[in-house]
């Protein structure tokens, strides 16, 4: 009797838990998001299905490359300490994996803005022969054969059918929910923390020298700019021009967010800079001139050794340690993984 009562109780609590409203909370200091789940209503079950898919290796051809292999929670969902990420058959991706957070604010995704909607973003790594290298129909076939997935899809979408649209919408419930907005910077903004004197000085320098492109509070203005990086002729990546076909877009790349920058090294679209210091030195004294160079960088950005010290102090306040330890975002099978040390260089 007792056994059955326990089972019923677990059932009731489980039901309540699973149907808990799962609101998308827009941080107070953020603008309205681009993606607001209007045609993909966010639910606890949908989020959990997306999370399970994100961590499931079966989405890749050989089973070894779940989304989470290149997007690791302890690195704010970038690939820790890898210029380029590993993919199928001992290959490398051709760009540095960006951190995944605050994606609901991105109208276009990827370093070149080639992806026009967050829901279709997963198709790029899923089908890229250097990355997950799988075929959509194969993925759907594998999910259909699983014992659990048809039940989960039924719970989320009202029928057990599994198709690419449902897989992508579920994945988006997870990825668009990854919000990072509780770094020390945010706490200072809402009055619950204070910068120390170095961070304060760094913030002032940041506002003067960096904030034009790395606009607060998302720390990017989502534009594409040529920041004077030389062309790596082993990759021949011309950035935005690949998408628009316009020569005036040659060598332009998306301005990346600086949030969680201590966790997302190496830096740059091809990960050529291993430390923040190297990036700052590039702006100080490494800009390569060219016809599409951003007009604000013609003379570089003078950054003294002192500036660099203060700037790095400030950039440390953009680390959201609650985000990387949030159990909601972790691998549902294993929970929070042992995370790599925070890297300060």
């Amino acid at each position, binding site marked *: 009797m007792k056994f059955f009562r326990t089972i019923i109780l677990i059932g009731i609590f489980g039901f309540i838990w699973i149907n808990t409203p799962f609101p998308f909370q827009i941080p107070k200091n953020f603008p309205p998001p681009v993606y607001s789940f209007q045609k993909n209503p966010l639910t606890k079950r949908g989020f959990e299905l997306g999370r399970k898919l994100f961590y499931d290796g079966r989405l890749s051809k050989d089973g070894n490359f779940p989304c989470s292999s290149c997007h690791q929670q302890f690195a704010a969902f970038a690939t820790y300490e890898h210029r380029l990420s590993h993919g199928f058959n001992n290959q490398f991706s051709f760009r540095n994996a960006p951190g995944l957070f605050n994606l609901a604010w991105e109208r276009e995704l*990827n370093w070149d803005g080639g*992806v026009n*909607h967050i829901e279709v973003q997963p198709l790029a790594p*899923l089908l890229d022969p250097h990355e997950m290298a799988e075929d959509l129909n194969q993925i759907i076939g594998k999910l259909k054969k699983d014992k659990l997935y048809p039940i989960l899809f039924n719970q989320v979408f009202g029928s057990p059918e599994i*198709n*690419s649209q449902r897989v992508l919408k579920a994945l*988006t419930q997870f990825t668009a929910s990854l919000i990072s907005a509780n770094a020390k910077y945010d706490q200072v903004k809402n009055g619950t923390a204070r910068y120390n004197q170095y961070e304060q000085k760094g913030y002032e320098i940041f506002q003067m020298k960096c904030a034009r492109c790395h606009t607060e509070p998302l720390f990017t203005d989502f534009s594409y700019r040529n920041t004077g990086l030389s062309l790596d002729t082993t990759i021949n990546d011309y950035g935005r021009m690949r998408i628009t*076909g316009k020569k005036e877009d040659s060598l332009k790349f998306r301005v990346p967010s600086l949030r969680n920058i201590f966790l997302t090294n190496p830096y740059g679209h091809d990960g050529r800079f291993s430390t923040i210091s190297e990036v700052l030195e590039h702006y100080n004294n490494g800009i390569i001139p060219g016809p599409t160079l951003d007009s604000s960088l013609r003379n570089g950005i003078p950054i003294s050794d002192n500036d660099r010290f203060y700037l790095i102090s400030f950039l440390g306040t953009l680390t959201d340690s609650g985000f990387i330890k949030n159990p909601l975002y972790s691998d549902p099978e294993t929970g929070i993984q042992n995370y790599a040390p925070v890297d300060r260089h």
Partner: protein
Amino acid sequence: MQLNKKYRNPFGEIYEISRFRLYIGNIRPAYTDKETKLKKSSSYQLVDFSDSTTTYMELPATTGTCNGVEFELGVDSADQNHGAQSGQLDPSKGMFWTWNSGYQSFRIEGYSPFSNQPAHIIAYHIGGYRYPFSTVWKIKMNTTNDEVFKITNDYKIIVEVPVELDYFFDGPTPLHIKDISSCTTPGEMSRKISENFIGSFTGLVLTSAP
């Protein structure tokens, strides 16, 4: 045009097509005695010449006379960035570019001894919806010999999609296989090749069914 059959284009180049797919959007009858009112419907059909169930379509029609159909080749820019789609626009149908989001307007794949590509492949994966390199076209296709087709009741019109590739190769931009054996990205070239395709729809046959 039949798949896997050898043809010679107007420049004397031999080719055969192994797979051929295209998107037809918002197809409706073209009446000679009244305006076709187009509701914004966003309906698409992926025509795949290796699947005969996709090469014809039924259109609702009202009383009147018509001499052809109007449709869009490709997927309208307004329907290109709505996220994950199902049905005819399901990306698993293989017509969606993942690295530069967008549906291709058409995909012609095959072989030619004149190809400059490995294995003599020819591949025209033509798409792109952004100005100025859009590959989406409004097309009016007339019946053969401009035959007028009277509809007396509310019949359905059945349309078979005909394609004649001679016009495709010898269009506004002459397409010599030896020079352009492949185009698989959006941009100026894709736009030009798509324009060649407009004239390829000829020999329309309409039949009606209650």
